[in-house]
């Protein structure tokens, strides 16, 4: 295994009551790569992210993150190893303010007692500020998260992940429900934050995919049916057959 690979998945499979949601999947993501995973509904895209972050336990295969096998690790340990995951619907703490949301995600004081004696030092405040700036929420720091627009909630969740500075960031449909303008800004944001980390994005909006993807993987019925550049993938007859339509 070369050192430029961030994530190497081999022979991964999971079945729910006999239904194989992901089946003998092989998938490699390089360092500093932004990969987009597309595919029709039920192709196993979200399940793939669930398997990587430990939400779902695989029945076969390995998920190597650098040198660690994630299939053997607990969810919180996977996060601490450097894997961040954004959920499909914005998953933020609506009853906290924007800055509290970010601060809670700061990777210190992660044990129960550690959290009790956690101090907000200068570096925390600065990190909250810089991340808020990154995700375009600088002027909303003291606002309650429930009052943000849908798009801003998506950004906030991305910001919460950035607080942890993960090496692998996984985003499940980050622009769903966003306005055209917000999509533009999100594309810029993703291009910015993928500079020094690997990113996996699940997305349906092909125009958006074109803007951000380095490489595209197409899933169908739990298997990879095509992989490569956007142009190569969209020209693939099988992809047109199962996903893009004629």
């Amino acid at each position, binding site marked *: 295994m070369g050192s430029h690979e961030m994530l190497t998945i081999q022979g991964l499979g999971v079945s729910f009551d006999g239904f194989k949601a992901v089946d003998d999947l092989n998938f490699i993501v390089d360092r500093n790569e932004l990969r987009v995973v597309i595919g029709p509904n039920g192709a196993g895209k979200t399940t793939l992210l669930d398997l990587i972050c430990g939400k779902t336990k695989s029945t076969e295969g390995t998920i190597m993150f650098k040198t660690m096998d994630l299939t053997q690790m607990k969810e919180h340990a996977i996060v601490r190893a450097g894997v961040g995951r954004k959920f499909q619907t914005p998953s933020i703490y609506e*009853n906290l303010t924007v800055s509290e949301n970010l601060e809670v995600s700061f990777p210190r004081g992660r044990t129960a007692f550690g959290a009790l004696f956690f101090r907000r030092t200068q570096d925390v405040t600065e990190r909250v500020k810089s991340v808020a700036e990154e995700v375009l929420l600088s002027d909303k720091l003291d606002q309650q998260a429930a009052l943000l627009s849908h798009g801003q909630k998506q950004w906030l969740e991305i910001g919460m992940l950035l607080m942890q500075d993960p090496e692998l960031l996984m985003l499940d449909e980050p622009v769903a429900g966003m306005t055209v303008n917000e999509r533009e800004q999100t594309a810029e944001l993703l291009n910015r934050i993928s500079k020094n980390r690997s990113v996996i994005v699940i997305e349906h909006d092909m125009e958006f995919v074109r803007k951000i993807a380095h490489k595209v993987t197409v899933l169908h019925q739990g298997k990879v049916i095509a992989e490569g550049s956007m142009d190569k993938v969209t020209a693939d007859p099988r992809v047109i057959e199962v996903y893009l339509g004629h």
Partner: protein
Amino acid sequence: MNLLTKKISKNDLIGVIVLAAIILVLFPAVFSIFRLNLIGKYLTYAFVGVSLVLLWGNGGILSLGQGVFFGLGGYCMAMFLKLEASDPISTKIQTTPGIPDFMDWNQITRLPLFWMPFKSLTFTILAIILVPAFFSFIIGVAMFKRRVGGVYFAIITQAVALILSVLIVGQQGLTGGINGITDLKTMHGWDIRSDSAKYILYYVNGALLIGCVILTRWVLSTKFGMLLLALREKEDRVRFSGYDVANFKTLAFCLSAVMCAIGGAMFTLQVGFMSPSFVGITPSIEMVIYTAVGGRMSVIGAVFGTLLVNFAKTFFSEQYPDLWLFLMGGTFIGVVMLFPDGLAGLYERYGKPFVARVASKKKSEPTVAVAAALESGGKHG
């Protein structure tokens, strides 16, 4: 920006001071020792109310078995007091002098092993804290590591309450059975039944309660408290932010259990007995109602909620002995329907704006006077 100082704000500080003044100054000044002792008893329930604000209001973990920990604390204290009350001289008419009377009635001839260490006050005080902490830790780990939560957790805590009360009733010879542990007299020779002792215990109880209120406010103001709120809302998000959620819930559960136990121990001291009727399902649920009435998010609200419910209970049962249960039920339904956020919610909506208005008026009056003085001064000049 600085959340810690923001959260323990002026308002909170004023709230705690008002609470302390009411408990430590107003009540002793107004009420006779009989009533004061009664209030002291209610205030021991307030420990449970406060513990539920931490666990249920903020953490979203509903425990319907807080009576278990109240009882554990109470029984630890009762065992110590009972041993002291059962010296060989005052129990000389028993078949086996020197052991608690109920053991003698149950043909037990030797003090059971687990009673032995309760001859020491130091051990007893440690046990009041450590026994409930230990039990809540075991329950917490067993439940939360398996991701048992919500209604299922509530039902299991209720089962635990039932099990413990059945166990206490069943093991009459070891626990005093349904009657509980009664006839408690002295603590290290100090008669806890005298009026002066009742006064002192009332103040100790009040101070401990205010200590628990401040402790809970502090816990809620830390990152731990923020995470509890976050957990209540989006447990998965917390888990996938790198936190072992079960540990957080377990610590909150242990903290709440210890608070309940302190309340239980103070109950035994002030009321002079402990019985399984404070351990089972009914008292555990009643204690949740105190918190609901007070407002489940408000630590101070929980204390007032407990007092209000118990005042109402005493008033109704003295005035309308036949009707009081119906009146209590009606009050609960009314509160839940009309003020879902409890007393604290009422204060937030009506009390706070009023206080703010009064405060701003007071502030503006001097400025007006100064302005007028300046103006007149200017004219003369």
